[in-house]
Every structure is written in C-alpha cells, then in structure tokens.
C-alpha cells in the first residue's frame, strides 16, 4: 500500500524552487539505463537547465545541486509512446470529451496540437508510469490529420507541444466499411464471399484513387503557392485542406499510414515509394510477413504487440513475436500503446515482445530511443545523454516488470507530481470502513 514515498519525493521536489528549468538536480548512486550506451551499474545523472548535463560512473555532483539519492533505484530515459490519442481524448464514449476524429474523411488540416487538453486526467496517469513523451495523433477517415509530439507536462497546448507537425496520418484503404459501433445492430446485406471480395477491391481502388488525386492536387497547390510567394503568379484560391496536405504531398512531412494486413502494408509501402514519400506503417499486425520489403525500403513500423493474430491459421504468438522478427530482419520499429487511458502499459507491451524473442535491451530501445528517432526527435529525447532534454524517471527495478514502481519522473529537468485522479481516489477510499 505504498504510493506515499513516491508522492512524498515528488512533493518535496515540487516544493523546492522548481521554477525549475534552471535548477540543478543530481541523481546519485543509481543504476542508469541510458538506452544509447551501455548500462552504468552505479552512477550519477546531472540535470541542468532542462537538459541532461552529465551522465556517468564518475560524474561529480555540481555545487548547489539538489541531490536525489538513487541508490537501489534504476534511472531510465523517459518512455516515448509513438502512437496515442493522449491530450485529445478523455472518455471514449462521451463525444463531448473526444477530439480524435473530425467529421468527414479528408482532414489533412486537422491538427492535434490545436485541441490538446493540458488538464486531461489521462496525462498524469501515463506520466506516473514513466511515459514522458507521446505522439498525439488524430484517427479515422482516409486522411485523419496531423500529429504532435507532446511532453506529458505543461499547462498550455504550446507548453505540451515538443514538435508539430510530426506526420500526416493516413488510414490505408482496406476496402472494408469502417467499423461503427452504433451500427452493429443493423442487418448486414446478404452477399456471397465473391461479391464481398469484389466490393472490397472496388472500394479499396476507389479510395486509393482519391488519395492519389488528393496528393497530386495538393502538390500542385503547394507549387502554386510557392510560385505566388515568389511573385510569379497570383495567389491561388485559399484552400485549407490542400495547403495542409502540400508538405506531405511533396515529401516534406512523413505519412504515418495505418495498415495491418500484409497486402495493405505492401500496398502502403508501394504507394509511398511510387511518390517518393516517406512512409511509416502504424498497426503493422502482419509486418512479420513482409520484413524483407520493409528492410529494403527502409520503412519503419509503429507496432502494437498485445493483439490477436490476423488469421485463425496464424501462429498463436504472431503478434507477440512480430517485434522479434522485425528486429532480426533489421527493420526499424517502435512499440506503441495505440491507446490513451492505458498508454501507461507501454512497457508491458515491450515485455511481451521480450518474452517472445526480442532481446531485453532492444525492447527498451523500442519504447525510448527508436520511437524518438522514427518521429524525428532523436536529438532531443529517447536516451540519457548530455545535451538531451532532461526527461528521466526513477524506478524500483526493471520497468518492464509489472511489479516495479516508478518513484520519480522528471520532464525538462522538473520533478513531476505522481498524484493522479486514480491515486486521489485510492487515498479517499482505501480506508473507508
């Protein structure tokens, strides 16, 4: 029954003159998992000016630094969850609390960082288990919108935003009608298997053609906009969606394309390749079936581990062993929660990948350094190295072990409160007679 020491530590640190970015903190005597270099069995991490100033076994504590005794603890780089709806989701079933999916299916101008809710109760819950950065990404439709990389601390949308835009999110057309919970009670149309297959192919081709046209149009619009800025032609008519899509259409912004089936992953890779665009696959349930292609085209995958296999005949552990197969083939990937309320379980997705063949250090990289690199923030976050953002946390042991407690979280060198909506309710009711 121990939330209190962690809360106490956080409170002490918060109470200190933690206007913070300029205060110096030294975490001493801890095991340090750097994610970039080797593990330091006993060492010191110095956080200064919001950055990691030094890390090592023989680093001395700067004069005047606030010392955090890390003996018996492990220091980790803050975990990076490369696919979530944190900040734009509160309660799934309550429409008023959801800013995840815009109306219509072509929304390149929907920008996650516009709608971030700094006081979401979901954010502290994720943070309290060591998640310090998350990609907040719109969902659904054909073009879902643009994502933002957010640090899980801050009181304004601007304060939360670490990098935006990060990518244009596209749902690779599957040809299947989108799942709508509200329609599960409607009678399905009676069709043969062949008719359904034909419909799927027709719908998929139709949507792909729309996507091609949209990208072509946006590319042209972007060129026209550039030309008008150079004074060569009059300004084109304002078109918000086209203007928003233009950078992605000319390859200046990566496309994160959601695709699970092997054929769809191959389709998405080919689609981006033909246009010279950078594609990142999200979902990637059957990525293990096309590791050679992903490696050859150097396409990264944002992978959720805890899923059922696609087909009945697939190995029972197809999704669990997916990460290990990508790793062996040299495909770049990150493990993601693809969730909001339980983004905190990110390290346990990595644990499952580890139980099914992914080496332990790779499992950690897959939730720290690799997502940072894939999302273009590898110079800022994802490992404990001098010059990087001071996003670190202390844990009582292996963060992939469900029994481990997180005892302190620092974002930009500032100690974060570990109090959440859930610890408050726990304290309120644990001793109710």
């Amino acid at each position: 029954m121990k939330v209190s020491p962690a809360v106490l530590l956080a409170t002490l640190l918060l109470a200190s003159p933690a206007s913070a970015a300029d205060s110096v903190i030294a975490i001493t005597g801890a095991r340090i998992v750097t994610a970039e270099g080797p593990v330091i069995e006993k060492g010191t991490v110095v956080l200064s000016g919001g950055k990691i100033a030094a890390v090592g076994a023989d680093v001395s504590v700067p004069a005047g630094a606030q010392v955090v005794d890390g003996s018996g603890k492990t220091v980790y780089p803050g975990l990076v969850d490369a696919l979530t709806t944190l900040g734009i989701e509160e309660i799934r079933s309550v429409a008023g609390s959801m800013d995840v999916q815009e109306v219509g299916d072509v929304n390149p101008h929907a920008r996650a960082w516009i709608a971030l809710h700094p006081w979401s109760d979901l954010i502290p819950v994720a943070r309290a288990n060591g998640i310090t950065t998350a990609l907040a990404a719109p969902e659904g439709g054909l073009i879902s919108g643009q994502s933002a990389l957010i640090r899980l601390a801050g009181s304004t949308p601007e304060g939360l935003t670490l990098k935006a835009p990060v990518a244009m999110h596209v749902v690779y057309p599957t040809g299947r009608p989108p799942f709508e919970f509200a329609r599960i009670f409607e009678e399905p149309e009676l069709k043969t298997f062949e008719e359904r297959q034909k419909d799927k192919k027709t719908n998929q081709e139709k949507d792909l053609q729309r996507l091609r046209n949209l990208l072509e149009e946006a590319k042209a619009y972007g060129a026209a906009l550039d030309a008008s800025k150079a004074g060569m032609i009059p300004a084109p008519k304002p078109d918000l969606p086209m203007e928003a899509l233009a950078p992605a259409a000319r390859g200046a912004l990566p496309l994160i394309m959601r695709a699970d089936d092997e054929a769809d992953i191959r389709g998405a890779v080919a689609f981006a390749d033909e246009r010279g665009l950078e594609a990142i696959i999200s979902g990637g349930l059957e990525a293990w079936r096309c590791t050679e292609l992903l490696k050859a085209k150097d396409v990264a995958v944002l992978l959720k581990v805890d899923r059922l296999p696609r087909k009945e005949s697939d190995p029972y552990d197809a999704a669990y062993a997916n990460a290990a197969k990508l790793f062996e083939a040299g495909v770049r990937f990150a493990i993601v929660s693809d969730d909001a309320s339980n983004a905190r379980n990110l390290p346990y997705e990595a644990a499952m990948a580890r139980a099914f063949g992914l080496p332990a250090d790779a499992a950690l990289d897959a939730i720290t350094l690799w997502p940072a690199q894939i999302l273009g923030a590898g110079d800022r976050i994802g490992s404990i190295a001098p010059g990087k953002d001071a996003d670190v946390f202390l844990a009582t042991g292996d963060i992939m072990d469900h029994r481990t407690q997180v005892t302190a979280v620092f974002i930009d060198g500032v100690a974060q409160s570990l109090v959440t909506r859930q610890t408050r309710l726990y304290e309120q009711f644990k001793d109710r007679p």
Partner: protein
Amino acid sequence: MRTKLIALVFAAALPAGAEAPSNALAIVGATLLGVGPQGTVEKGTIVVRDGKIVAVGKGVAVPPGASVIDASGRFVTPGIIDAHSHTAVEDGVNECTDAITAEVRIADVLDHADINIYRELAGGVTAANVLHGSCNSIGGQNAVIKMRWGKGPEDLVFKEAPRGIKFALGENPKRSNFRVPGERRYPGTRMGVEATIRGAFDQARAYKREWEEYEKKARATGVRKDKPVPPRRDLRLEELKDVLDGKVLVHAHCYRSDEILMLIHVAEEFGFKVRTFQHVLEGYKVASEIAKHGAGASSFSDWWAYKLEAYDAIPYNAAIMASHGVNVSLNSDSDELARRLYWEAAKAVKYGGVSEAEALKMVTLNPAWQLGIDKHVGSIEVGKDADLAIFSAHPFAPDARVETTLVDGTVYFDRAKDLAARSKPSPLAETPKGGGR
C-alpha cells in the same frame, strides 16, 4: 531448456505392445506456486493419475512407469481461470430483444472450434466463465468451460460447475452508448434497470408460490382422480425461481457504486445472493457492503475511461476490495487479454501492494470459488483436477511465457510442439506421388 516428455526407462524395458503399468504423469523439478496452504514449493514434484493430482510436494517419489515432464528451472501454477469470458461463443452473445431473457443458454451456442480456445491455453488458461452479454438487465445462462481444445462442444462444459446467470446494470442495459434501429427498448435509466429486475423477481416469486401450492395440493390429493392442474411452465420464470432457491449463481455486470448497492438491496429483499459483481469498477467505494453481502468481485486490473461509468475506475480496486475481505478475481472479458491474465494479476502487486501469493489467487483460486468450482480446480492440491500451467519464468516476470498447459492431466498446449509443427510442411501441400488419376 525445453520441456520434454520423457518415457522413463521402466516403460522402455517393457515388452513391445504391452500396456504401460501406469497412466501416471509426473512434473518434476519446478517451482510450484499456488500449492494449497503451503503456497510455494521449490523443486517440487506433482504426480497426476487419471487426470487428478495424487501427490504434490518436495521429495515426492515419481511412480514407476510414469511419464515425466522435466520442468527444471520452470514455474508451475494452477491453470488460470477467467471469470469473465465470451470465448467460444458462436455468434451473438447478446439476446437483446427483451430486458429479461433468463431463458436463453450460452451452452447452446458453444463453438468448440473457436481458435481462441487454443490461444488462451497458450496463455495458461484452463477454464472460463462464458457469459451472456450485458445488453439487458437479466441476460442468459452462463457456461463454465474447460479449454479441452480438439474435443466436441459438449466436452467443453465444466460438468461439476453450478449453473449461473448474467445480470447487467448501468450504461449497457440502458443502451446509452449505441443506437438500435426502431423504437427504444425499456429501460433507459438506472431506475428502469432496477424496476425490470424487481418486476422479474416479483413474477418469479408469484410463480414459485403457484408451483409450491400446486405441489402441496398434488401431494395431498395423492392418486385420486381429481388431481390438480399444474401451472403453465414458463422457462424464463423457472430460471429466476431457481435463482430465488439458490440453485443459480448470479454474475452481475456493474460499474457504479450506487448500482452495486441497488442490486444488493434487491437481492436481499428477495432473499437471494449475488455470487459475483463483474467489472465492479467502483467496487472499492462500497467494498464493505460487498463483503457483507458475501459476494465476490471480478474486475479488470486497470481498464478505465472508455465510458463515463468507467471514469472513476482505479487499478487499486482489487487491492482495496481484497483488504476489505472481498474475494477478488481479475478477468479479461477479451479473447486477447485472456492470454496474459498472469500479468493482470501482477498489477495487483504494483497497485496497492497485494502479496504475490494473493495476486496469483486472483486468477486461480478466487475465480474458482466465484464459479463454485474451487473443490475441483484453482490450486495445486491432492484430489483436484490436474489443470496446470508451466511457465518459463516466474509468471509475473517480464520474460515469462507459458510453455505447457494441461487440463485434466492431458497436455493441450505445448510450445515446443507448436513450434515444431510450424516448420513441418502441411500434408495438403505435398504433391501426390505416382500416376494419380
């Protein structure tokens, strides 16, 4: 290290074709968890005969002729029991057309070929409470199953399990979060949910009285010609009458603390017990009341915020209810989550400091009690069914994986065999030899 089924030298010494002298099986060398009152046994042996555990402990002799599973360095737990599942249900888990549908039976729609049975075996699950959905205040009758993959639909049924029925409170029976074509079905509020349950038990009580009066008259009249006419049989009320008579365990889907209390009041007024509150995400707010009623609680470890009634859900729920004396289990309600319930249990250690032994019980012995099958399964004890899971490491450890799962002493999942089978070409893929016309 690989689990190997080793035929002992004794068996090899027998003349060819002779019957093995014993159908015994011994699992040796493992750390045993969930061993009755002892808890943990290091380097222990389990001896199984006719599907039952006949000996367990350290230094227990392996009977001559027994086949042996060498589980050195591994961990054996009682088979995991999922107290809330919809696995192996062939289509439609909800009979949504009425607020009370106590007459429908999950056992009638069991799909023994559901691949998720095998996948869950691979997560150490050996038994599950297959429940009707939460579409209505009183749904259908449950089926407690054993994961006897490869057997027929009737072989799935856990024969010794008492009958059970699904109740549901809150947003789902109110149908708050989805629209159904046509006119709205009653109820649409928590007031209405209570009214439908109360109304149903009013009728069931009257029905019970009718039958009791008839039986009394029938006894009194004996074999005379003017025998009384029996009341008209009503399958719906008959089931509810059996709830009143304590023959059917009530498993009630619920979220908010007020609706938990509501059902306790209704149950106590009509004189029946709620066996488990399912989900019961706000159970921690009324833990004492649940304990006093004598109900168990079967919850998610940490799901929350997917709907309004789940916004106050906390991962400390299991710990708080357990510390107030409630029998707590952790369930999946999901074919996917069911495969890693051992890690759901580990979260009870993290959130609220439940001991590891008690946490393991939350997916073994406690759900067994909740389903009324704890005399048969839920712990590694002499006389119980040999439903066991063998893990590569401590089940709560981050690299833990299930290697072998047994039901009734029979290996239904073995990872080494599963892997070997993958590299074997399918017999269908082989080209037939010869003239082949």
